[in-house]
């Protein structure tokens, strides 16, 4: 499609989605009325700058179904992502939404070079997280053979990769490196497997990591980007040029804004990525602030696709951490610690990457009055906190006890998080 045709399509779809949320989501109707905007005021894609932003806080305030536009009878699936302080974010999908998602996912896979002849292993977690099922449906929709490996049980997975001649894989880049490590331990060589294409995402990664994964697994590695609030994996994908990720902008309209002033930034400038869902029925969102920092790239891609490209995510405009592909907000950890009387309301988070797997260490101070002469009691306290954190974060953290008063009391948040991962 030419750029003009894309913009014309986006304009039509934007008008339609604004009209749809205006009549189906009280939250948006109130916002638009406050701003004195009628759906008919929005006719072209340039009018998007008049629309209000949506934030994660809005999703939390309207938990669980407040922003849902379709009646519950039309919702065929829900996914949930972690919230910042307890409430997860619930996203409902209609049958048509699942269809669009699968189609966009198939589009990503096709760009990577996957065809019906491939056997493709999905090694994202299946469940509330969108990674597993999202990729799964895309592979099936394309007609390739899907192996729903999910996460964990790396050795069994590697045997399947070898024995079934699996040619494609979707997982986090750190898990891909973990696979390579485990291969070495099992004595499986690169020549013993047929992997040729990897779709890697759900966490930031670097060109160095790409080179390492590609050489150790003997495949071509491509970026995939997505977020559950907007859809899941499929929002953007790299083509064979591996120079920026093409956005499925017929469904997800991207903008870059200044996270401080909230003003849209010209193309090419770095800022916060914002998406408007142009076709979604279940939970359409207007100008959703992703908090991911990147820029949109100018010019046409050598592959011939006209869809706009986004650069790698270079950071966040909040303090969210991505650990083993899971979003972790320090505020979640803080609320768990505050609800546990044995610990001071001080903490430090240390994120390391050991053997290519992310490790989260939560350092907490034991209150003096809970000091004991019994070592097992201290170990039990560590386990209790680790279990509580696991239930809130969905990942296991190592808890490290410290004597009261050890951690530096600083005003800023910076000292609380030490990310040693160099990504």
């Amino acid at each position, binding site marked *: 499609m030419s750029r003009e045709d894309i913009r014309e399509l986006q304009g039509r779809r934007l008008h339609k989605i604004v009209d749809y949320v205006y009549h189906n989501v009280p939250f948006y109707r109130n916002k638009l009325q406050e701003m004195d905007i009628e759906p008919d005021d929005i006719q072209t894609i340039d009018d998007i700058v008049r629309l209000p932003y949506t934030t994660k806080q809005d999703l939390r305030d309207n938990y669980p179904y407040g922003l849902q536009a379709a009646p519950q009878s039309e919702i065929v699936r829900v996914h949930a992502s972690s919230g910042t302080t307890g409430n997860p974010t619930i996203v409902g999908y209609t049958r048509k939404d699942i269809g669009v998602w699968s189609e966009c996912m198939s589009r990503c896979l096709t760009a990577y070079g996957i065809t019906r002849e491939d056997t493709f292993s999905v090694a994202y977690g299946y469940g509330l997280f969108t990674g597993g099922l999202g990729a799964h449906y895309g592979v099936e929709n394309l007609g390739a053979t899907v192996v729903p490996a999910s996460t964990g049980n790396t050795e069994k997975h590697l045997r399947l990769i070898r024995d079934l001649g699996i040619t494609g894989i979707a997982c986090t880049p750190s898990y891909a490196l973990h696979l390579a490590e485990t291969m070495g331990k099992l004595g499986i060589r690169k020549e013993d497997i047929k992997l040729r294409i990897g779709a890697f995402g759900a966490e930031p990664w670097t060109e160095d990591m790409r080179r390492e994964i590609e050489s150790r697994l003997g495949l071509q590695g491509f970026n995939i980007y997505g977020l559950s609030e907007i859809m899941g994996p499929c929002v953007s994908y790299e083509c064979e040029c591996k120079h920026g990720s093409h956005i499925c902008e017929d469904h997800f309209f991207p903008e870059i804004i200044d996270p401080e002033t909230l003003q849209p930034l010209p193309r090419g400038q770095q800022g916060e990525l914002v998406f408007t869902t142009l076709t979604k029925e279940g939970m359409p969102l207007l100008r959703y602030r992703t908090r991911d920092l990147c820029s949109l790239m100018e010019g046409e891609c050598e592959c011939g696709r006209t869809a706009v490209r986004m650069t790698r995510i270079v950071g966040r405009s909040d303090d969210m951490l991505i650990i083993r592909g899971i979003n972790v907000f320090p505020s979640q950890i803080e609320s768990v610690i505050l609800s546990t009387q044995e610990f001071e309301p001080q903490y430090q988070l240390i994120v390391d990457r050991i053997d290519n797997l992310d490790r989260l260490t939560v350092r907490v101070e034991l209150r003096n009055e809970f*000091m*004991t*002469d*019994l070592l097992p009691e201290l170990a039990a306290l560590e386990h209790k906190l680790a279990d509580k954190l696991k239930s809130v974060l969905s990942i296991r953290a190592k808890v490290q006890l410290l*004597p009261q008063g050890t951690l530096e009391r600083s005003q800023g948040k910076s000292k609380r998080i030490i990310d040693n991962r160099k990504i």
Partner: protein
Amino acid sequence: MIQQLSVFIENKSGTLLQILELLKNAGIQLVATNIVDTMDYGICRIIATQPKLACTILQEAGMSANLNEVFALQLDNHPGSAADAIAAFAQEGVGIVYLYSFLLGGKGILIFRTDNTERAKQIIKESNLQVINEEDLQHLY
């Protein structure tokens, strides 16, 4: 029973010295000490000449320290006396949680904690074991 001081120690060099120097500067003498450790931290258990003062000093210096009571038995200084004493607890199914020992004034001293304090007290009485208290300990210095 006697007072034992327990101090949380981070697993980094200099922490133990800091404790010992604080006690030294206050003129408090160590009678016995014992450290249990994990990968990341440990507990330093101390029998000192002035346990309450020692605890206050360490707490004021910002350390996690507390006092608790432990059993102290005085044994004759000959082979097998510890075995005979512990046998009394084992026969009654009372577990020893931790134990350390030292010689003081020609006597063997066993410091320990059991998993059933009340029952342990009865056993000591029934078995005629020579239990010592804070004051007895002072006489042995």
